[in-house]
Protein backbone atom coordinates (compact mmCIF):
# COMPACT_ATOMS: atom_id res chain seq x y z
CA UNK A 1 0.00 0.00 0.00
CA UNK A 2 2.93 2.30 0.86
CA UNK A 3 4.56 1.56 -2.49
CA UNK A 4 1.35 2.37 -4.34
CA UNK A 5 1.08 5.72 -2.55
CA UNK A 6 4.70 6.58 -3.33
CA UNK A 7 4.36 6.00 -7.08
CA UNK A 8 2.33 9.11 -8.01
CA UNK A 9 4.78 11.33 -6.03
CA UNK A 10 7.81 9.77 -7.74
CA UNK A 11 6.18 10.15 -11.15
CA UNK A 12 5.38 13.79 -10.45
CA UNK A 13 8.97 14.48 -9.36
CA UNK A 14 10.43 12.76 -12.43
CA UNK A 15 8.04 14.65 -14.66
CA UNK A 16 8.99 17.98 -13.06
CA UNK A 17 12.70 17.19 -13.35
CA UNK A 18 12.25 16.25 -17.02
CA UNK A 19 10.31 19.44 -17.73
CA UNK A 20 13.06 21.43 -16.02
CA UNK A 21 15.76 19.80 -18.14
CA UNK A 22 13.83 20.47 -21.33
CA UNK A 23 13.36 24.09 -20.32
CA UNK A 24 17.12 24.38 -19.83
CA UNK A 25 17.58 23.16 -23.39
CA UNK A 26 14.90 25.65 -24.54
CA UNK A 27 16.72 28.50 -22.84
CA UNK A 28 20.16 27.40 -24.05
CA UNK A 29 19.11 27.21 -27.68
CA UNK A 30 17.07 30.41 -27.42
CA UNK A 31 19.99 32.18 -25.80
CA UNK A 32 22.27 31.30 -28.69
CA UNK A 33 19.80 32.60 -31.26
CA UNK A 34 19.05 35.78 -29.33
CA UNK A 35 22.79 36.46 -29.07
CA UNK A 36 23.41 35.63 -32.74
CA UNK A 37 20.40 37.65 -33.86
CA UNK A 38 21.35 40.66 -31.74
CA UNK A 39 24.90 40.68 -33.14
CA UNK A 40 23.53 40.88 -36.65
CA UNK A 41 20.69 43.28 -35.85
CA UNK A 42 23.16 45.78 -34.37
CA UNK A 43 25.08 46.09 -37.64
CA UNK A 44 22.83 45.22 -40.60
CA UNK A 45 25.18 47.03 -42.99
CA UNK A 46 27.99 44.61 -42.17
CA UNK A 47 25.59 41.65 -42.26
CA UNK A 48 24.36 42.66 -45.73
CA UNK A 49 27.99 42.76 -46.84
CA UNK A 50 28.60 39.31 -45.31
CA UNK A 51 25.59 37.86 -47.17
CA UNK A 52 26.76 39.56 -50.36
CA UNK A 53 30.14 37.87 -49.97
CA UNK A 54 28.54 34.49 -50.66
CA UNK A 55 27.92 35.93 -54.14
CA UNK A 56 24.66 34.00 -54.42
CA UNK A 57 22.08 36.77 -54.18
CA UNK A 58 21.56 40.20 -55.72
CA UNK A 59 22.50 43.11 -53.46
CA UNK A 60 18.89 44.29 -52.72
CA UNK A 61 17.99 40.76 -51.55
CA UNK A 62 21.08 40.72 -49.32
CA UNK A 63 19.96 44.00 -47.76
CA UNK A 64 16.40 42.74 -47.22
CA UNK A 65 17.66 39.56 -45.56
CA UNK A 66 20.12 41.52 -43.44
CA UNK A 67 17.24 43.50 -41.94
CA UNK A 68 14.79 40.63 -41.69
CA UNK A 69 16.66 37.48 -40.63
CA UNK A 70 18.06 38.69 -37.29
CA UNK A 71 14.59 39.73 -36.09
CA UNK A 72 13.08 36.46 -37.23
CA UNK A 73 15.74 34.63 -35.20
CA UNK A 74 15.17 36.77 -32.12
CA UNK A 75 11.39 36.40 -32.32
CA UNK A 76 11.58 32.63 -32.74
CA UNK A 77 14.05 32.38 -29.85
CA UNK A 78 11.63 34.34 -27.68
CA UNK A 79 8.97 31.87 -28.81
CA UNK A 80 11.05 29.10 -27.27
CA UNK A 81 11.51 31.00 -24.03
CA UNK A 82 7.87 31.96 -23.58
CA UNK A 83 6.47 28.86 -25.34
CA UNK A 84 4.66 31.09 -27.80
CA UNK A 85 4.04 29.60 -31.28
CA UNK A 86 6.58 27.06 -30.05
CA UNK A 87 6.54 24.48 -32.85
CA UNK A 88 6.56 27.16 -35.54
CA UNK A 89 9.57 28.79 -33.87
CA UNK A 90 11.38 25.44 -33.69
CA UNK A 91 10.76 24.73 -37.36
CA UNK A 92 11.97 28.17 -38.50
CA UNK A 93 15.11 28.00 -36.36
CA UNK A 94 15.85 24.46 -37.55
CA UNK A 95 15.43 25.49 -41.17
CA UNK A 96 17.69 28.52 -40.69
CA UNK A 97 20.48 26.50 -39.08
CA UNK A 98 20.28 23.93 -41.89
CA UNK A 99 20.55 26.71 -44.48
CA UNK A 100 23.50 28.35 -42.68
CA UNK A 101 25.25 24.97 -42.40
CA UNK A 102 24.76 24.16 -46.09
CA UNK A 103 25.93 27.64 -47.06
CA UNK A 104 29.03 27.27 -44.88
CA UNK A 105 29.85 23.87 -46.37
CA UNK A 106 29.17 25.19 -49.86
CA UNK A 107 31.46 28.15 -49.30
CA UNK A 108 34.20 25.88 -47.95
CA UNK A 109 33.91 23.58 -50.95
CA UNK A 110 34.11 26.61 -53.23
CA UNK A 111 37.10 27.89 -51.30
CA UNK A 112 35.42 31.19 -50.50
CA UNK A 113 36.82 33.09 -47.59
CA UNK A 114 33.68 34.36 -45.90
CA UNK A 115 32.29 34.66 -42.42
CA UNK A 116 29.61 32.27 -41.27
CA UNK A 117 26.20 33.93 -41.35
CA UNK A 118 25.10 32.67 -37.93
CA UNK A 119 27.06 35.05 -35.79
CA UNK A 120 27.77 37.54 -38.51
CA UNK A 121 31.14 39.19 -38.50
CA UNK A 122 31.82 38.12 -34.92
CA UNK A 123 32.65 34.61 -36.12
CA UNK A 124 35.02 35.74 -38.85
CA UNK A 125 38.06 34.23 -37.15
CA UNK A 126 36.48 30.86 -36.50
CA UNK A 127 37.83 27.86 -38.33
CA UNK A 128 35.62 25.80 -40.59
CA UNK A 129 35.43 22.86 -38.10
CA UNK A 130 34.44 25.32 -35.34
CA UNK A 131 31.65 26.73 -37.52
CA UNK A 132 30.42 23.30 -38.46
CA UNK A 133 30.56 21.90 -34.93
CA UNK A 134 28.65 24.87 -33.51
CA UNK A 135 25.98 24.64 -36.20
CA UNK A 136 25.54 20.89 -35.72
CA UNK A 137 25.36 21.25 -31.93
CA UNK A 138 22.64 23.89 -32.27
CA UNK A 139 20.80 21.70 -34.79
CA UNK A 140 21.02 18.74 -32.41
CA UNK A 141 19.44 20.84 -29.66
CA UNK A 142 16.66 21.95 -31.99
CA UNK A 143 15.97 18.41 -33.20
CA UNK A 144 15.78 17.17 -29.61
CA UNK A 145 13.28 19.90 -28.76
CA UNK A 146 11.28 19.15 -31.92
CA UNK A 147 11.23 15.45 -31.07
CA UNK A 148 10.10 16.25 -27.55
CA UNK A 149 7.40 18.62 -28.84
CA UNK A 150 6.08 16.02 -31.28
CA UNK A 151 6.40 12.78 -29.36
CA UNK A 152 7.19 13.83 -25.80
CA UNK A 153 3.59 14.03 -24.48
CA UNK A 154 2.71 10.64 -25.96
CA UNK A 155 5.78 9.09 -24.32
CA UNK A 156 4.97 10.59 -20.95
CA UNK A 157 1.40 9.42 -21.09
CA UNK A 158 2.46 5.86 -21.83
CA UNK A 159 4.61 5.61 -18.71
Amino acid at each position, binding site marked *: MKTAEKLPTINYQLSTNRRFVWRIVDFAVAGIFIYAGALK*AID*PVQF*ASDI*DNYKMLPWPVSVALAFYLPW*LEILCALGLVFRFLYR*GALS*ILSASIVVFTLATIGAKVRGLDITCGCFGHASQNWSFPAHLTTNLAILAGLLLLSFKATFGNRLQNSI
Partner: protein
Amino acid sequence: MKSSLVGQAVILAALALLPAAGEAIYFRDKISWRSAIAPSEMVTVEQARGWGDTAIWVDARPDDEFANDHVPGAISLNEDRWNELLPQFLALWAPGKKTVVYCSSLSCNSSREVARRLRKEAQLSDVFVLEGGWEAWLKKKR
Protein backbone atom coordinates in the same frame (compact mmCIF):
# COMPACT_ATOMS: atom_id res chain seq x y z
CA MET B 1 -7.26 26.70 -30.54
CA LYS B 2 -3.91 25.21 -31.47
CA SER B 3 -2.69 26.48 -34.80
CA SER B 4 -0.78 24.21 -37.17
CA LEU B 5 2.99 24.24 -37.45
CA VAL B 6 2.83 26.07 -40.77
CA GLY B 7 0.34 28.56 -39.38
CA GLN B 8 2.62 29.30 -36.44
CA ALA B 9 5.61 29.72 -38.72
CA VAL B 10 3.68 32.11 -40.97
CA ILE B 11 2.59 34.21 -37.98
CA LEU B 12 6.17 34.44 -36.72
CA ALA B 13 7.47 35.28 -40.20
CA ALA B 14 4.89 38.05 -40.53
CA LEU B 15 5.54 39.46 -37.05
CA ALA B 16 9.28 39.68 -37.77
CA LEU B 17 8.54 42.07 -40.64
CA LEU B 18 7.60 44.81 -38.18
CA PRO B 19 10.95 45.29 -36.39
CA ALA B 20 12.75 44.61 -39.68
CA ALA B 21 10.85 47.43 -41.39
CA GLY B 22 11.54 49.72 -38.44
CA GLU B 23 15.23 48.99 -38.63
CA ALA B 24 15.31 49.49 -42.38
CA ILE B 25 13.83 52.97 -41.86
CA TYR B 26 16.31 53.73 -39.08
CA PHE B 27 19.30 52.72 -41.20
CA ARG B 28 18.05 54.24 -44.44
CA ASP B 29 20.91 56.74 -44.60
CA LYS B 30 23.57 54.18 -43.91
CA ILE B 31 22.75 51.61 -46.55
CA SER B 32 21.65 51.86 -50.16
CA TRP B 33 19.26 49.31 -51.66
CA ARG B 34 20.57 50.00 -55.14
CA SER B 35 24.25 49.49 -54.64
CA ALA B 36 26.62 48.40 -51.94
CA ILE B 37 27.82 51.95 -51.44
CA ALA B 38 26.17 53.82 -48.58
CA PRO B 39 24.41 57.07 -49.55
CA SER B 40 26.79 58.93 -47.23
CA GLU B 41 29.70 57.68 -49.35
CA MET B 42 28.40 58.98 -52.67
CA VAL B 43 28.86 62.51 -53.97
CA THR B 44 27.54 64.31 -56.99
CA VAL B 45 29.74 66.23 -59.40
CA GLU B 46 28.41 69.52 -58.02
CA GLN B 47 29.19 68.57 -54.42
CA ALA B 48 32.70 67.37 -55.29
CA ARG B 49 33.43 70.48 -57.36
CA GLY B 50 32.28 72.59 -54.41
CA TRP B 51 35.13 71.16 -52.34
CA GLY B 52 37.66 72.93 -54.52
CA ASP B 53 41.25 72.18 -53.57
CA THR B 54 40.30 69.96 -50.67
CA ALA B 55 39.20 67.31 -53.14
CA ILE B 56 41.65 64.80 -54.60
CA TRP B 57 40.19 63.22 -57.72
CA VAL B 58 41.05 59.56 -58.21
CA ASP B 59 40.52 57.81 -61.54
CA ALA B 60 39.90 54.11 -60.99
CA ARG B 61 39.69 53.26 -64.69
CA PRO B 62 42.32 51.25 -66.62
CA ASP B 63 45.51 53.04 -67.70
CA ASP B 64 44.48 53.50 -71.33
CA GLU B 65 41.18 55.17 -70.43
CA PHE B 66 42.97 57.49 -68.01
CA ALA B 67 45.56 58.37 -70.64
CA ASN B 68 42.78 59.14 -73.12
CA ASP B 69 41.08 61.69 -70.89
CA HIS B 70 40.45 62.30 -67.23
CA VAL B 71 39.30 64.90 -64.75
CA PRO B 72 41.92 67.66 -64.73
CA GLY B 73 44.34 67.08 -61.87
CA ALA B 74 43.05 63.54 -61.21
CA ILE B 75 45.47 60.83 -60.21
CA SER B 76 45.25 57.32 -61.58
CA LEU B 77 44.71 54.56 -59.01
CA ASN B 78 43.39 51.27 -60.32
CA GLU B 79 43.51 47.70 -59.12
CA ASP B 80 45.66 46.58 -62.03
CA ARG B 81 48.66 48.50 -60.63
CA TRP B 82 47.48 49.16 -57.10
CA ASN B 83 50.80 48.46 -55.39
CA GLU B 84 52.66 50.78 -57.74
CA LEU B 85 50.09 53.60 -57.85
CA LEU B 86 49.00 53.71 -54.23
CA PRO B 87 52.18 55.35 -52.88
CA GLN B 88 51.82 58.08 -55.51
CA PHE B 89 48.30 58.79 -54.33
CA LEU B 90 49.34 58.72 -50.67
CA ALA B 91 52.07 61.25 -51.43
CA LEU B 92 49.34 63.70 -52.49
CA TRP B 93 46.93 62.95 -49.68
CA ALA B 94 46.88 64.97 -46.48
CA PRO B 95 44.55 65.07 -43.49
CA GLY B 96 41.49 67.14 -44.30
CA LYS B 97 41.47 66.17 -47.96
CA LYS B 98 38.38 64.57 -49.46
CA THR B 99 39.04 61.75 -51.93
CA VAL B 100 36.61 61.45 -54.84
CA VAL B 101 36.91 58.19 -56.77
CA TYR B 102 35.32 57.74 -60.18
CA CYS B 103 35.20 55.20 -62.96
CA SER B 104 33.24 54.62 -66.15
CA SER B 105 29.66 54.81 -64.90
CA LEU B 106 27.44 53.93 -62.00
CA SER B 107 27.40 50.27 -63.04
CA CYS B 108 31.20 50.00 -62.99
CA ASN B 109 32.53 48.42 -59.83
CA SER B 110 36.08 49.77 -59.92
CA SER B 111 35.44 53.06 -58.13
CA ARG B 112 33.61 51.26 -55.36
CA GLU B 113 36.43 48.75 -54.98
CA VAL B 114 39.16 51.39 -54.97
CA ALA B 115 37.21 53.44 -52.41
CA ARG B 116 36.69 50.35 -50.27
CA ARG B 117 40.39 49.51 -50.33
CA LEU B 118 41.39 53.08 -49.45
CA ARG B 119 39.06 52.96 -46.45
CA LYS B 120 39.99 49.46 -45.35
CA GLU B 121 43.69 49.16 -46.21
CA ALA B 122 44.94 52.71 -45.89
CA GLN B 123 42.24 53.52 -43.29
CA LEU B 124 41.52 56.87 -44.84
CA SER B 125 38.39 58.75 -43.95
CA ASP B 126 36.41 61.05 -46.28
CA VAL B 127 36.61 58.75 -49.27
CA PHE B 128 33.70 59.16 -51.68
CA VAL B 129 32.48 57.60 -54.91
CA LEU B 130 31.35 59.95 -57.69
CA GLU B 131 27.71 59.39 -58.54
CA GLY B 132 27.36 58.78 -62.26
CA GLY B 133 31.13 58.43 -62.67
CA TRP B 134 33.11 59.77 -65.60
CA GLU B 135 29.95 60.17 -67.69
CA ALA B 136 28.41 62.47 -65.08
CA TRP B 137 31.57 64.61 -65.11
CA LEU B 138 31.47 64.86 -68.90
CA LYS B 139 27.81 65.91 -68.83
CA LYS B 140 28.49 68.67 -66.33
CA LYS B 141 31.55 69.82 -68.24
CA ARG B 142 29.42 70.82 -71.22
